[in-house]
Structures are given as structure tokens and as C-alpha cells.
């Protein structure tokens, strides 16, 4: 296996392999992410020279407020959200073995929205915003459990899962609208901005809540590398090799739901990132799971940060939700996938 670097724990319980060529691509992606990160910091309603950005990163600059209080949390938030959605989509697509699986299409995002909206409307006065991610993770978990149960009849077929997911999404949308219309208009526009998927107004407090959650979950998913690689071969072979398929499928789905729920909790429904990022990762990287996890995370965050740069510079002075642009890229991509898979499914 000369093409791989292998990282193995001493007792061989945990191991992950990185394809050498992919490692190079991953490093390029990482560099690209750093570049986009810096561009994001310097671009905006007032342009800040790149030199000043570097100064701020390492010491103090002339723009402490804009950089440190406004842009930095926003950009980091974009990075975290993109990474979370990317990995969530990757796991989901692997688990239901369908290229069209993505948190928003399968209704996880919708469920997270319901959780978050209920929280904003009913609990925000009494509880601190720190609990918002938990509310949307619970919403996502409940919704995806409902979808999974409803798609069950002698097993779950991917197509039925997706169809039911679309149906349930319509229901969650209706519920969200219901609460928005029946609450005061100040809350309604707050919820609305949240729903479209905006990084506007991200602050350090939110970043500090989200950062450990997303990083831990992504790190956890790396631990399942070996199992997922085996599972790619099909359930039967995996069972034959001693993998507890049902157990790990549940565990991985739970990871995916938690990632999407946490990502959506502060940024709202940034659409289609979970769909596209894993696809791009699979095109440019070797298909071993550890590669793909890191790749999807980086590509997801590139998409979100890129969309956010467009969102807050192109239509100045307005600040458009980044979700509009991710949908603008994502929906055509989805249609392309449908076109490419036109022979694949009915």
C-alpha cells in the first residue's frame, strides 16, 4: 500500500489512511481555505487592506472593531457551518447510499428549523441563546426519526426516504410559518432572517458555543473511518467482516443529524452545501473515508465562506443571506446530478 499514509493507534483499534496524492490536494484545499479566510476578513462594506488583516491576526491593527468584533466571528462561523454541513452530507450520502442525500433534502434542516423557531418564539426570553443549538439538534433528531420510521416498510429504500423527507419538509415549513405568523413582527423578521441562512450578526459567544460541538463531531466521525470503508462494500460483506451494521448505521446517522442540527442552529438553512461538498470531494479526492471527511469539511467551508463574501459585497449596502447564493449554486448542481443519474433510478 505504497500510496497511503496510515495512522494507527497502538492497539490497532483505530486507524485511518490518507492517500498520498489526496494528501497533497487536501493541503492545497487547506491553503485555499486560509486564502479565502483572509479575503473574507478584508472584503466587506469597508475594505481593509490585507496587510492590516495580517497585522490583526498576529498583533493589533488599525481596525480592531471591524475585524475582531464583526468579521472574525462571522468568518469563523461560516467556516464551522460549512464544515459541519459538508461532513453531515457526506455521512448521509454514504449511509443511504444515494448521491442525492443531503441534510436539507431529507428534511433534517427543516426539523432543525422547527426546533430553533420554537426556541426563539417561546424560550428565548427565559433561556440563554446557548441552548439554541440543542433545540435545533433535538428538532433535527425528532424529524429525522419520524422520516426514518415513515419510510420503513421491510427496510428503508433511499428513494422512499427522500420522498418522505420532501413531504415532511413541506410540513415543517408550514409549522415554521405558522409560528412566525402568529408571533410579533419583530420576532417574525428575526426568524425569517435566520431561516434564509445568514451569517449576519454572528458573534464570539455563538462561535465559542459552536466551535467545540462541530470539531468534536467531525473528529468523532473520523473514528468510524474503517467501518465506513467496509460498509461501502455493501451491508452483506460488512456483516461478513464482523461489523455491526445496524448499530453503526444508527450511530453515523445520529452523527450526521447532530452535525447538521448544530450547523443550522446559528446560521439557519444554508441550503445545498451538504449536497455539493461531498460530491466535489469525491471527484477530486481518493475515495477513502478519512480523506473525504476532511475534504468535505474544507470544501463545505469554502462554499459557505465564498457565498458569504458575495452576499455581503455584491449588493452593498444590503447584506443578503449567504443561503441565497449556496442555493443558487446548489440547485443547478442538484439538477445536474439528476441528469447524470438519469439511468440510475426510477
Amino acid at each position, binding site marked *: 500500500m505504497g500510496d497511503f499514509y496510515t495512522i494507527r493507534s497502538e492497539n490497532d483499534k483505530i486507524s485511518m489512511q490518507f492517500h498520498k496524492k489526496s494528501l497533497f490536494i487536501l493541503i492545497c484545499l487547506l491553503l485555499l481555505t486560509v486564502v479565502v479566510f483572509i479575503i473574507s476578513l478584508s472584503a466587506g462594506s469597508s475594505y481593509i487592506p490585507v496587510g492590516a488583516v495580517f497585522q490583526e491576526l498576529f498583533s493589533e491593527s488599525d481596525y480592531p472593531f471591524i475585524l475582531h468584533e464583526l468579521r472574525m466571528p462571522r468568518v469563523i462561523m461560516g467556516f464551522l457551518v460549512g464544515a459541519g454541513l459538508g461532513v453531515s452530507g457526506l455521512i448521509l450520502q454514504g449511509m443511504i447510499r444515494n448521491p442525492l442525500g443531503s441534510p436539507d433534502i431529507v428534511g433534517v434542516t427543516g426539523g432543525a428549523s422547527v426546533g430553533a423557531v420554537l426556541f426563539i418564539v417561546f424560550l428565548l426570553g427565559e433561556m440563554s441563546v446557548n441552548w439554541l443549538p440543542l433545540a435545533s439538534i433535538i428538532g433535527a433528531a425528532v424529524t429525522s426519526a419520524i422520516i426514518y420510521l415513515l419510510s420503513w416498510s421491510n427496510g428503508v429504500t433511499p428513494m422512499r426516504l427522500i420522498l418522505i423527507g420532501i413531504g415532511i419538509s413541506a410540513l415543517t415549513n408550514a409549522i415554521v410559518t405558522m409560528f412566525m*405568523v402568529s408571533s410579533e413582527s419583530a420576532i417574525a423578521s428575526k426568524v425569517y432572517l435566520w431561516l434564509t441562512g445568514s451569517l449576519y450578526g454572528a458573534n464570539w459567544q455563538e462561535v465559542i458555543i459552536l466551535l467545540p460541538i462541530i470539531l468534536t463531531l467531525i473528529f468523532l466521525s473520523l473514528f468510524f473511518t474503517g467501518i465506513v470503508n467496509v460498509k461501502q462494500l455493501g451491508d452483506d460483506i460488512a456483516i461478513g467482516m464482523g461489523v455491526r451494521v445496524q448499530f453503526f448505521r444508527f450511530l453515523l446517522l445520529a452523527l450526521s443529524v447532530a452535525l447538521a442540527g448544530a450547523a443550522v442552529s446559528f446560521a439557519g438553512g444554508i441550503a445545498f452545501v451538504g449536497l455539493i461538498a461531498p460530491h466535489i470531494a469525491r471527484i477530486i479526492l481518493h475515495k477513502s473515508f478519512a480523506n473525504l471527511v476532511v475534504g468535505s469539511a474544507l470544501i463545505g467551508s469554502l462554499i459557505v465562506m465564498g457565498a458569504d463574501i458575495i452576499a455581503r459585497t455584491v449588493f452593498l449596502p444590503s447584506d443578503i443571506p449567504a443561503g441565497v447564493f449556496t442555493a443558487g449554486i446548489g440547485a443547478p448542481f442538484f439538477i445536474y446530478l439528476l441528469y447524470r443519474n438519469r439511468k440510475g433510478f426510477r
Partner: protein
Amino acid sequence: MNKFINNRHIRWITLLVLLLLFVIASFLSIFLGKTSIPLSTVWDAFFHYDPSDTNQVIIRTSRLTRTLIAITIGASLSIAGALMQALTRNPLAAPDIFGVNAGALFFIVASATFFSVESLSGYMWIGFIGAGLAGAIVYLLGSMGEDGLSPVRIVLAGAAISALFISFTQGMLVLDEQRIQSVLFWLAGSVAGRELSLLLPVLPFILGAIIISLLVGKPLNILMSGDDVAKNLGLNTSLVKLVIGIIIVFLAGGSVAIAGSMGFIGLVVPHIVKGITGPNYQWILPISGIFGATLLLCADIAARLVIAPQEMPIGVMTALFGTPFFIYIARKGVKKSG
């Protein structure tokens, strides 16, 4: 089965019962609301109109208008749904699933935001164009496969197209913050607070489309026996399909222009009706129309009363009731094709 209660009788009985329910629902829709108005005033509003009486004005302007709009929208969406299900041979076809609503919505909001179109007839035509375009795209995407139109692919393509149009619409609305509240209510689909002047310019088109749709029942029956059979029977299949396509655009686009997007009516109604009348489109289309109108009237009455004195958008009500039905059809329909 008793020979006296054959299919024909069932159809007539259904038609009569539905007409009765329809009249009752229309009456309730005029009678019930957040201000309770005595029956005698309702009577006076129609036959001894006194413009100085606020209650009579409410009846004549607000209640009557929304009742008429609910009837129009309910009938047109249901007929459009029945036609789409026939044309695509897809049990899950419906205006909202095809992205027709989202397309019309996007074009209307875009024209208002960027080209400051404000005339109602302008909205109407733009709504038609948007509806036609979105529907055509989804139809093409859905029929790309080797096996022709596939239900699942149409639903997926429709979901993607809807997501695209809706997120663009949301983007435009965020640009224009003052309008969020009002447009939001409209987005969710509502028959409230609309003036009769909104209905009137669209009405001739919708009525025309409904009348033509009653005439296409027979050719549609022939078409349902398969394209080849229909051609051999001397039917100009492409003409029939084109006419049906245009009817769908007028019905669905017109509805969105009046009342915003309203889900599931077009999906649910034809299914229930088909269950009662059997696969005869000469019956399915008119009964769907009446049933759809009745159902939407009921949904609207519920929307008014559920959280009174506030109002729920009627689109929310239809989605709450329609989703379980969608899931039922999805489970049943997809099992067949794997």
C-alpha cells in the same frame, strides 16, 4: 354490488352531495369570522344593502371576496392537479410539487423588486410566464430518463427547482425589509385581505381554462389509454397535450397570482375524487373542481378560527392536512416502482 347503485349513480350522488356541501361551506365562509355577525345582517347585506352598517360592509367586501377567491383557487388548483396527474401519469404530480407555484412567485416578486411592476394585470401575466417556465423545466428534467417520466425524478426535480426559486425570492425579500411581513403572508398562501379587483382581471382566464378543461375530459380519457392507441383512434395527441399544458399554466399561474402559493390541494383532491368516480376524466375534472373549492373553503374557515382573532395563512392549513396524504401516496406509489 347492487345494480341500482352502479358507478353512474355513485357519480351523480357524489356530485349532488358535493354541491350541497359546497353551498353549505360557501354560506359558512360568509357567515363565520372573527366578528360575529347575525344572520339577518348577512341577509340584509345581500338584499337590502346599507353601506352605513359596518357589518354589512364586512360581509360584502371582505367575506364575500375571500369566499369567491377560495372557490376560484380551490377549483383551479384541483383541476390543474388532476390534469397534471393525467398528463404525466404520475400520482405525485401537482402544481406545487412541479415548482409551478415557486416559479410564478419568483417571477412576480422579481418583477416587483427590480422592474417596479405594480399593476395587477402585470403580475398576472408574469405569474403565468413563471408558472409555465418552472413547470416546463421540471417536466423536461423528469422525462429525461430512458423510461420516460418517472414519478420520483419529477418530485426531486420539482423540489430542486422550488428550492432555487424560493431561495432567490427570499433573497429579494431580505433586500426589501418593509415588505417581509406582507409578502410572507402571501408567500404562505392566503385568501384574506385581497380585494375583488385582484380577482377580476384573472377570473376570465381561469374561468375560460376551467370551461375548456371540462371539454377535454373525453379526449383525455382516450389519451389515457396510451399515446399509440389514441393516435390510432384519430386523436391529435400533441394538440391535446398542448391544450392541457396551457390550461394548467393558466389555472396554476393564475391561482398563485391571486393567492400566493398553496400546497397540496392539487395533489390530494384528484386522488380522492378518482377513488370515488373511477378513472373517467369527464367526471374527475368537474368533481375535482367542486371538491377542491369546498375543501379550500373549509381550510379557509379553519384558518380564520384556529387562532382567532389572528389568522393563519391558509397555505399552512393545507400543508398540515396535505402532508400525511402525500406520505401515504409516496409510500404506496413508490413501493410499486421499487
